[in-house]
């Protein structure tokens, strides 16, 4: 299989003098069509890791390759191009533009890439259908529920068919029903469109939708968990075990 993302020895330090290693020599590789989760307690560096991959933050060491292209040293202009052509984002605070309708929010991702105007409408409607938001395309974000907003953000992320979708706590602000719906859609994107998804979460239920989970602690990889042929329920239990170990270790320290 093709390798979409390859992270090697990634470091992100903060401060001078007494340095904090937010991300400390992390290795990670994601293959095409994978649905990978990153878990860990607060302060474990999972969001920093994601921000580095998303080119929002700059790592202090190591390398990140997306489809073989090294992205750590890119110039601002090349970075912007890389972001709009290769990446899709879904964030906890959903990041929809409040002046635009759902349709326009999704369409904007296409127009800034220079997609021909004639194709925009078809692509948006097709993607919206996949995420089951076809009936609220003409609404403004503040007229939609949180779940609909998140699925709109997901549609915006996927409509450009990016190499990699990055999701940071996408279910963080949703109730359990909306979470389930969003995750079902993520799964559908993953299976039907072979979308590659990298998702950060601290919620075990959300993580149980992934194929593989990377556990971080204090900026370093603690362990990895593969779902394999396990049912989601069994996988969820395995995850809970690891979370308990993570927490247990911490209480030992205390």
């Amino acid at each position, binding site marked *: 299989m093709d390798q979409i993302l390859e992270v090697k020895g990634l470091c992100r330090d903060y401060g001078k003098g007494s340095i904090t290693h937010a991300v400390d020599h992390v290795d990670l590789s994601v293959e095409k069509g994978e649905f990978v989760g990153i878990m860990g307690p607060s302060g474990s560096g999972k969001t920093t890791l994601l921000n580095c991959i998303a080119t929002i933050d700059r790592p202090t060491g190591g390398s990140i390759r997306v489809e073989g292209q090294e992205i750590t040293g890119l110039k*601002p202009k090349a970075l912007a191009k890389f972001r709009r052509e290769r990446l899709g984002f879904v964030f906890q605070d959903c990041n929809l533009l409040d002046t635009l309708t759902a349709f326009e929010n999704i369409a904007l991702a296409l127009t*800034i890439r220079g*997609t021909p105007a004639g194709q925009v409408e078809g692509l948006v409607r097709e993607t919206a259908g996949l995420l089951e938001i076809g009936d609220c395309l003409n609404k403004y974000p503040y007229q939609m529920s949180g779940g609909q907003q998140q699925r709109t953000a997901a549609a915006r992320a996927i409509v450009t068919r990016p190499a990699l979708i990055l999701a940071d706590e996408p279910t963080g602000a949703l109730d359990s029903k909306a979470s389930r719906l969003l995750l079902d859609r993520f799964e559908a994107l993953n299976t039907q469109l072979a979308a590659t998804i990298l998702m950060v979460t601290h919620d075990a239920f959300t993580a149980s939708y992934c194929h593989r989970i990377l556990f971080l602690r204090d900026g370093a990889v603690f362990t990895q968990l593969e779902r394999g042929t396990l049912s989601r329920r069994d996988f969820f239990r395995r995850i809970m075990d690891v979370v308990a170990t993570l927490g247990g270790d911490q209480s030992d320290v205390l």
Partner: protein
Amino acid sequence: MFSKLAVKNVGRSFRDYGVYFLTVAFGVCLFYVFNALETQTVLQYLSGNQRQDLVDSIMRLIGMLSVFVWVVLAFLILYASGFLVRRRSRELGTYLLLGMERRQVAGLLLAETAFTALTALAVGLALGVVLSQALSVFTAGLFAVPQTAFRFSVSVPALVRTALAFVGIFLLVMVCHTLSLFRKRLIDLLRANRTNQELKARSLGASVALFLVGCALLGVAYAMLLIRGMLRVDALFWVMIGLGSLGTLLFFRGLSGFLLRLCQGSKKLYYKGLNLFILRQFNAGINTTYRSMTVICLMLLLAIGITATSVGLNNTVERMTEEAQPWSVELTVWPEEEGQAMDLPAALAERGFDPDRWCGPWAAFPLCRDSQGEFGLREADYAALESAWGTERAQAFLKHQGAEVLPNDDGGAYTAVLWHFLADYAGDPQGAEEAFLAAVSDLTNTGGYSYSTKQAAWMDLMGTKVLVLFIGLYLGVVFLVASAAVLALQQLSQAADSAGRYQILSRLGVSERDRGRSVDVQVFLAFFLPLALALIHAVVGMTAANEIIAQVGRVDVGASGAVTALLLVAVYGGYFLATCWGSRRMLRASA
């Protein structure tokens, strides 16, 4: 207690305070220059030449206009400081959250405002003194006033008046802020950045109808103006002004409703790059700001109209006087009895004004009635006049007096009705004028007389020029600055509100260049939509005004157009560029 924090706050938010500071300083500077008009060389020259009455009336008019300008500046500064407080409401909310009392926060705000205001006042006054001085030299040259040695003069009354006026404004600002701070709830302060702009949905048909009605009203107002002219101030005049203003309002309201739909109609345009974002941004703004667009459009119209008219009028007035007063001195005497012979040159020489000493060409002659009752000038006297000043001026004199050349062969049947003395000074005109005035004032026992001198006419003219030009340009600049500053602040506050949106755009992979371009387009639309309509208004208005001016003299369209354009480019263009730069900076910092 909080003075240290206050000073630090001002330093930290210097960028936000920058626009406010500039606006206040510029306002102070203009206000001082206007009020310190008496120190101007031109006015001192006028008052030094027995034209104290003129100077007094100018100063009275300036006093009245100052009140008007004060009101405009007060609104402007209130608006500018409101923008600042809104920008910082989150910070103020944090102070409250940390347990500071409202009284203390209000005190902090007061200290900051006072600190900025006093600095701006000082800077503005210093600028004003310098500008006033420069203006004095410049206008003295413009009005051809003989300049004595350069004197540095500061008008203390103007300083005091300016300081008082602005301290008054600052007190007003402080009261308003304190009140609003005490009224606001903490949650509103903390969440100020998150409140959405309301997007009113309006049907397309209604918008188009409003726009068309607006255009129709404007058309009616234009037609009235062009047909009726400008000077008939009656009930219909105010109807016309009302129609124009309402038309402008409906124009912008309608435009705000359907501009977006119009662009959405063209998919090629709408789905290209950031276009849909820019249009939405602009639309969100215009829905709430079409009223301010109307006000700005009308203010711009005033600025353009006043500036252009005053410059045009100034040049016309000058030419008119040149034609009306061709001689250095013109004395007319009515003898007590018709037919009485007079020797005006001798009479003047006797009283200390010897024409041969003071004058170049001169002539003294009677205007007579002949035996048929024809009124005119004897042929010999006309020949003398013609030889002294040429045919053109001699003819002009005849036309002006309504006289004809009477044939010389009518024997002694002439009756002298009026005696004329015409002369051009030679050498020292100042001395000649004084000698003439002294001599003429002693002429009482010879009957009725009237005189006009070129210098007196110049003084009158100069008074009018100073009045028209100074006040016109001043008001023009004030309106221009006011509208540009309001627009700048509005755009900057919109940029501040949009910071989050630009951050999202950055994450979506929109390059910095494209984001900057999007900001520029928005600022451009906000600045140049009102300007475009104001220019159309102004062209129609100037056409009407020029018709009136053209009745009394030739209109100098070139000069007035050039001066107005220069002012527009300098002030409005300057504010436009500064706003683009400021908005870009604000958004770059947030992305």
